[in-house]
């Protein structure tokens, strides 16, 4: 087989139906193995991702467990109307956007600064050690993060109240105070992910043309100037792409951590769409209503992701997928 024939697609032959059929039979005889390899993926996607999409119809149905997804009667948009008029869903929607926007504002710049700072460190052992430490929390389970938060912010046993005590302050029961939920949640998110997220920016910095720095040094630029005038502008495309991805995933707040940390007392600021779905659907068995909330969520997420991808494609040649 020559290189040339390898690179040419199996030409869709414009022949008669009979010839086409023999060509197909021939093709499958020769290439059946790759179809066998593909089969498990296709089955898996159909069973675990596409079949639930078919099951989304419960959002428009009066679902009963006994009748099943297909047998339950249609009721149209009733669940969506219920959701729109429900205070809880409105609150969840507002909280989702608030938490995402706040973590975007406070969380997004941190890894960029970390990467810029790491880049200035020339001491190898120091750099490696520090990187090893700051990447670590990424690999820790949400339950552990929640456990640490609960222990550290406990009113009687926690380190945070102990430190407040040094300054003569009364202990605060942080986890039942709605005004403290978001700072704690966003702070623990930054603690867990900022280090690991800096890898992308470090990789972008590694790709900056070294001759830029060389000529800057000849011109007498300081490290500080080079950081702001060369490194930061050079990684701007990466920063913008990452920002677009974040905006595309705006609805994806870490609801697992919220489930572990929130309490009825903090629902006012903590309850997001996915925790609402979990409570109504899985805990409360109101599957149809919760599925409607999920569909609402999925449609907005789809629009956001698509918009983000279109913008990214227009902005740079690298599409997101």
């Amino acid at each position, binding site marked *: 087989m020559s290189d040339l024939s*390898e*690179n040419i*697609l199996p030409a869709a032959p414009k022949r008669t139906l009979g010839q086409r059929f023999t060509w197909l039979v021939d*093709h499958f005889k020769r290439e059946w*193995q*790759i179809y066998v*390899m*593909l089969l498990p*993926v296709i089955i*898996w*996607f159909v069973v675990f991702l*596409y*079949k*639930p*999409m078919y*099951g989304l119809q*419960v959002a428009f149905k009066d679902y009963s467990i006994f009748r099943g997804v297909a047998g339950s009667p249609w009721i149209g948009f009733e669940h969506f109307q219920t959701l729109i008029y429900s205070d809880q869903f409105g609150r969840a929607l507002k909280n989702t956007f608030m938490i995402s926007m706040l973590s975007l504002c406070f969380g997004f710049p941190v890894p960029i600064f970390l990467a810029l*700072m790491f880049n200035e*460190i*020339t001491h190898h052992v120091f750099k490696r050690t*520090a990187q090893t*430490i700051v*990447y*670590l*929390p990424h*690999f*820790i*389970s*949400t*339950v*552990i993060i929640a*456990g*640490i938060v*609960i*222990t*550290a912010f406990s009113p009687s*046993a926690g380190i945070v109240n*102990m430190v407040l005590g040094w300054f003569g302050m009364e202990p605060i029961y942080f986890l039942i105070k709605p005004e403290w939920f978001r700072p704690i949640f966003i702070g623990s998110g930054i*603690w867990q992910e900022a280090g690991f997220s800096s*890898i*992308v920016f*470090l990789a972008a910095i590694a790709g900056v043309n070294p001759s830029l*720095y060389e000529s800057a*040094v000849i011109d007498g630029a*300081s*490290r*500080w100037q080079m950081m702001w005038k060369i490194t930061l502008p050079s990684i701007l495309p990466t920063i913008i792409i*990452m920002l677009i*991805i974040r905006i595309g995933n705006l609805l994806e707040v870490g609801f697992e951590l919220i489930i572990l940390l929130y309490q009825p007392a903090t629902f006012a600021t903590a309850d997001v769409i996915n925790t609402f*779905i979990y409570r109504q*659907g899985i805990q409360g068995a109101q599957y149809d209503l919760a*599925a409607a909330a*999920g*569909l609402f*969520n*999925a449609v907005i997420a*789809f629009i956001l992701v698509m918009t983000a991808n279109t913008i990214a494609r227009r902005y740079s040649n*690298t599409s*997101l*997928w």
Partner: protein
Amino acid sequence: MANMNLYSRGDKVFVRLNMVLITVFALLTLYPFIYIAAVSFSNGSAAAAGTVFWRPIGLTISAYDYVISEPLFWSSYKNTFIYTFGGTFVSMLIIVPGAYALSKQQLLGRRYFNLFVAFTMWFNAGLIPFFLNMRDLGLMDSYFGLIIAFACNAFNIILLRNFFEAIPKSFEEAARMDGANEFQVLWKVYLPLSKPALATIILFCMVARWNGFFWAMVLLKDEQKIPVQVYLRQVIATLSDDEEFGQSLLNQGYSVETVTAAIMVCSIIPVLIFYPFIQKYFNKGIMLGGVKE
């Protein structure tokens, strides 16, 4: 950068300041771990009173004694290993051949198959239809159900497919001349050339499995099948709600805080052991994924 000796005095101050800031950040990152470890080795009443700062107060291993005497701790720990290694193995069985097939130009309808996979990254049916589907399939409360239901995802397939596509065709020609079939080409040519990509995906799968708790909590009712993360959640929930039980713990030299801290330490240890091995793949892996997140 190579121009180290060209640093001016201002640069040196700048670099020092940087090191100080990084050190502060690293210590802040590390501190919660130290704190939890210190609590776990502390005397129960000291921990409950909130006097532990960075070192154990009244050094004792009684919390660990309590934890290792709990049969549920051991069974959940074992289960976590089953889900992590079994799950990753099943994932690779599905993802690797699939990604290989999708990378092949001769695959008819390749465009549509790729779209079929990629679409699930943009649109997801959500928690409830997935949950109902699991129930309809009879996969609740089973090891197999939890393993198979999270075996695959579009991101990993696309990541590996892109890597396979970048391997020059000339590599497989010799094998094909010798009459190798697709499976042999994949096994003998592609896999050895794809170690960084495979390591990355194995890493992603294992981390997700080790840390996963939400679906394990939702799908598993049988206590004997829960992973350690779900067990930990149960312990935190029951210990902090049941004051009487908390008091009885205190009388035995440990407390709610020391016991939960001890379980957390036990659950972090395997991660710490594996961590140095996986760390070298971070940079490569993230670059493979590029911005395709």
